[in-house]
């Protein structure tokens, strides 16, 4: 290749490969855990909080950084809520000690 590759093309490469990774990894998820899968992907997609932090962190406080801060708060609900509720669900799937048979 000659010349510089446009960043968008690099991004597209990353995107397509990530879709393939996602495809294969997700088919490996056991159907019993599809609800936790959904809540954890929810938490993961809130990584857009990164974009909101950048907007909020602009050197001057203005309309843009205000929107950013609002975005940070919204995404933070998901980050914490998503991972914690997933955790809560997965705890339920923990293997329990079978209760020893009681007298009845």
């Amino acid at each position: 290749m000659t010349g510089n590759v446009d960043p968008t093309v690099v991004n597209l490469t990353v995107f397509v490969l990530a879709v393939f990774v996602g495809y294969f990894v997700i088919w490996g998820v056991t159907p019993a855990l599809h609800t936790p899968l959904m809540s954890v992907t929810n938490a993961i997609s809130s990584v857009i909080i990164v974009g909101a932090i950048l907007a909020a962190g602009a050197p001057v406080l203005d309309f843009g950084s205000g929107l950013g801060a609002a975005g940070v708060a919204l995404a933070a609900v998901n980050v914490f809520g998503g991972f914690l509720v997933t955790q809560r669900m997965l705890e339920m799937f923990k293997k329990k000690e079978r209760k020893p048979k009681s007298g009845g």
Partner: protein
Amino acid sequence: MSANQVALWYLAASAFFILALKGLSHPESARRGNLFGMIGMAIAIVVTLALVARGNLGMIVLAIAIGGTIGAIVARRVEMTQMPELVAAMHSLVGMAAVLIAIAAVYNPSAFGIADPMPVGNRLELFIGSFVGAITFSGSVIAFGKLAGLGKHFRLFSSAPVVFQGQHLLNLLLALAMIGFGVWFFLSGKEGQWLPFIVMLAIAFVLGVLIIIPIGGADMPVVISMLNSYSGWAAAGIGFSLSNPMLIIAGALVGSSGAILSYIMCKAMNRSFFNVILGGFGAAEGAAAAGGEQRAVKSGSPEDAAYLMANADSVIIVPGYGLAVSRAQHAVKELTDKLIEKGVSVKYAVHPVAGRMPGHMNVLLAEAEVPYDLVFEMEDINSEFGTADVALVLGANDVVNPLALKPGSPIYGMPILDAYKAKTVIVNKRSMATGYAGLDNELFYMDRTMMVFGDAKKVVEEMVKAIH
């Protein structure tokens, strides 16, 4: 930190996200997977905080603290039956956050390291990210309302499909208009960019509402999966416009996850994706039951049913959403324990669309402490109904309807749990009303079937009492 260092940290975070999903392949590794996800997220947030100007750091940390506290409280308090509502609400937040970021980027591109005035390429990506985000937001709000049963208060939230003449044409025209304004936006300069951008966003918000309202309550599992997918694509779109590979990777993972779940749900209902999206299904909910002659069924008491099960060798329980509605999970778990004590083999058969979102029934059973190794997916257990002594159907209807095997019936081809093959079938229902599909169920009229009418929780509790 140099840009390269930041990029490498983001790469690490992306790898953790992949590991998080990989962990979900088994209940034993899932908790570690979730931990990986948290680590990835922590890296992403801390590294980004280190990047931004110190002056605003306080405001950002405060925003994280407020949002995080709300999230943590909700995560702790939510009932497992409300999981679909919660997930829908969270999708809407991702969508809204994407929209806010997009507006901020149009307002001040330099905050994201984008050239000012913004190049056409970035505008195109921003357009895609923001309209997908807007549709995700308003669509998820409607889905939330439908799931939370707010239809009484506001008609758009009605769980029955909202359809009107020319709906699809309107949607198509709006979509075209939205794209038109999008093209205007990315061809415009720094002046004059706001009008097309705002109009485009407004149309996208309306479109999100219109896409979801015609979809009926029975199709909610597909809708949630679809919005899950959209929220991922919105994140990826924002990642493109900010040229941030971590966002692109995370978004692509989530997007494909949601797409696969939608596919699985559609297949489990034997519907094509477009058939669900175009909506209107389930409009005649329960209407078909009113017509037609009354057919005789055999009914029995919970005690009769308990007697049959206690003397069986093997029992397969088919839980449906009716069970969750009457909160009978814990009673069912008690019944299971008693039967196992009697030496009966007990298994659960879960249909992919049992519940209101993918895997919902599994979570509800896990909450009631039913060990997950007693719970089987449709493909794994269908061959065992033929040798089972009793199939106990609790609050499930369409997913055990043998009509699905009859060519020409409306649900022909839908994969079902073969409960009708069991030596005896015990069905608990509140009444003879039909399921979402509005069809009579042949299973109820078989000679080998005993109907036990009543609320699932009460009935199961009486069964438990009757077993000594």
